[in-house]
């Protein structure tokens, strides 16, 4: 593989963290498909398990966490959960590019960007290092930066937006076709954010990638993603084509989240915060619906039974929602 956008099939994935209270799931029984060549956005608040899910794509969940069940099938690589050691190390970078949360701070402050690029090349056995530098320069130029100058710079000489672009370059330079961006625009101002999102869209299309964007900001997903998945308390509560989910959200959490965004037009008092607070690893309910504590539509069944995802094959792709209230309404 290496020239085509791979598809990714996550099946029944559960990731647990060891705590004094036993092993608690940060991600519980999640199934999600990334179609080749699409941008998928995962939205969730802190503690929703979105970053843990993203790390699972690299099989990079660190102890005390571990993947307890499920599989992550990536075209051309097989099940990543089964990979280990050298095989796994090679897959990262070559096949899967990862732009870390706060990429601004993930660079080595003591080395120039160019030196770090060469380190990356050597550790992946690249023979044509000159070619690698050329490729990096081209990528940086594509993103509106002076490639030569950036490669000669230390991280403190670059602005937040520039570091983010360096992060994207390092993720793509080994020609990975599956890219994960974890909070790509946090801590950037609006204009820089708009710039980075435009670059993500363009680079995605030009290089033929499969892209996963993880964020807490629904606006970011709305701008770039074809499909949107909403996570809450380690569960996937709703997913579908971005425009459909935003235009007609079904799960009460998705509805609440969209309502909680301050907008530029309309009555500001219509925007409303969700009551309560997001659960943590320790407070997330062990059975029943994870959202029920903050839900206006709570019923008795929500306390005991985990709502199963209901799939609806739409024209623009499947839509899934996991909520008893929604299911009841449909069958009534």
């Amino acid at each position: 593989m290496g020239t085509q956008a791979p598809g990714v099939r996550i099946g029944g994935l559960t990731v647990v963290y060891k705590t004094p209270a036993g092993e608690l799931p940060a991600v519980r029984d999640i199934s999600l498909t990334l179609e080749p060549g699409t941008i998928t956005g995962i939205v969730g608040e802190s503690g929703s398990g979105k970053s843990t899910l993203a790390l699972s794509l690299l099989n990079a969940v660190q102890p005390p966490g571990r993947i307890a069940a499920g599989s992550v099938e990536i075209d051309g690589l097989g099940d990543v959960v089964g990979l280990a050691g050298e095989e796994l190390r090679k897959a990262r970078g070559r096949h899967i590019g990862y732009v870390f949360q706060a990429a601004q701070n993930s660079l080595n402050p003591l080395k120039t960007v160019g030196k770090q690029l060469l380190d990356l090349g050597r550790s992946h056995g690249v023979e044509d290092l000159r070619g690698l530098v050329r490729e990096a320069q081209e990528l940086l130029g594509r993103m509106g930066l002076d490639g030569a100058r950036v490669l000669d710079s230390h991280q403190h000489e670059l602005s937040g937006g520039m570091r983010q672009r360096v992060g994207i370059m390092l993720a793509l330079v080994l020609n990975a076709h599956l890219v994960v961006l974890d909070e790509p625009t946090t801590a950037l101002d609006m204009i820089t954010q708009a710039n980075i999102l435009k670059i993500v869209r363009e680079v995605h299309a030009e290089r033929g990638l499969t892209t996963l964007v993880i964020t807490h900001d629904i606006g970011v997903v709305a701008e770039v993603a074809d499909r949107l998945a909403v996570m809450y308390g380690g569960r996937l509560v709703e997913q579908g084509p971005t425009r459909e989910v935003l235009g007609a959200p079904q799960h009460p959490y998705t509805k609440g989240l969209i309502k909680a965004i301050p907008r530029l037009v309309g009555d500001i008092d219509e925007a409303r915060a969700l009551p309560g607070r997001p659960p943590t690893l320790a407070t997330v309910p062990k059975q029943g619906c994870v959202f029920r504590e903050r839900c206006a539509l709570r019923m008795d069944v929500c306390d005991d039974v985990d709502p199963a995802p209901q799939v609806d094959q739409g024209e623009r792709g499947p839509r899934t929602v996991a909520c008893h209230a929604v299911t009841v309404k449909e069958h009534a």
Partner: protein
Amino acid sequence: MITGTGVVKTFKQRGKMLGAREVRALRGVDFAIPKGGAASFIGESGCGKTTLGRIIAGLETYDEGEIEIGGVPMSGLKHKQRQPHFRKIQMIHQDPYSALNPTRTVHQTLHAPLTLRAGQTGRSRAWIEERAAEVLSLVGLDPGTVLSRYPHQLSGGMRQRVVIARALTVDPEMLVADEAVSMIDVSLRLGILALLKDLRERLGVSVLFITHDVATARYIGADGELYVIYRGQVVERGAVDTIIADPVHPYTQSLLSAIPVLHGLEQPGEQPVMPLESLDESQSDAGCLFARRCPFRGERCAEERPLLRITEGAPQEHACFYPERRDVIARPMSEV
């Protein structure tokens, strides 16, 4: 009433190899925030909005101009004399995780400033306890459950409420909220914004918002003033809703165009404005500061600096030679 006239601040960086470099953070800013009023400073990172907020809160000095608090000019006063004035202005920082001492319970956090306050006004110990419970209720927390907690036992939203409660212990006249919700979970942000609006209405505390997100600036209330700041200069100033609905400065238009559109729910504006390049503070200071990035620059812009003024056809002040309304903001589908 807190006013500023011609406030200038220049940061000097000493470099051994490259020589000294000056960053002009503020280039003569005027502002006025009436008692019980509200204002919002918006702009990119590095535009000077945080510096101005810190100067207003007394955490930073200024080189030229004047700040007056309740009619008293600050520049002639000694540090000690200034302190009681600046105490009326309390800062709410961006990061509620580092703004609270992790080894102190909420009770201890509130106790210290209240003891000071009680000493000044000759009140009893009982008053301290009463007041601690009162400020917590004001910010929407239950004193019974929160007082004995440490910061790590609270969520981000609750911590920010404790920070606001601590600010209220000294009966401030103004709260300066510097990106106060950017590190808080999305579903809880609105609660904090609504709280600040509520405190303003109920207690008559003025609120100053410093943010890069224009939409949150609306929460200061419809009568609030918006200051759009670029490279240390106010480039547009007026009522919040006027500027959002009818911006005339290309920089304000760029800020508004950059706000993500909720596709499926909203329709983007028809004339979005994208700056030609990114912010570079080392650019020349000649002419209009925004000219190099401005897609609509004319001949005059390179030579002359436009000053903040009112022209025909727009109710707000702006600093642009060629002001023009453009349709930049996204609107709900139902309205289109």
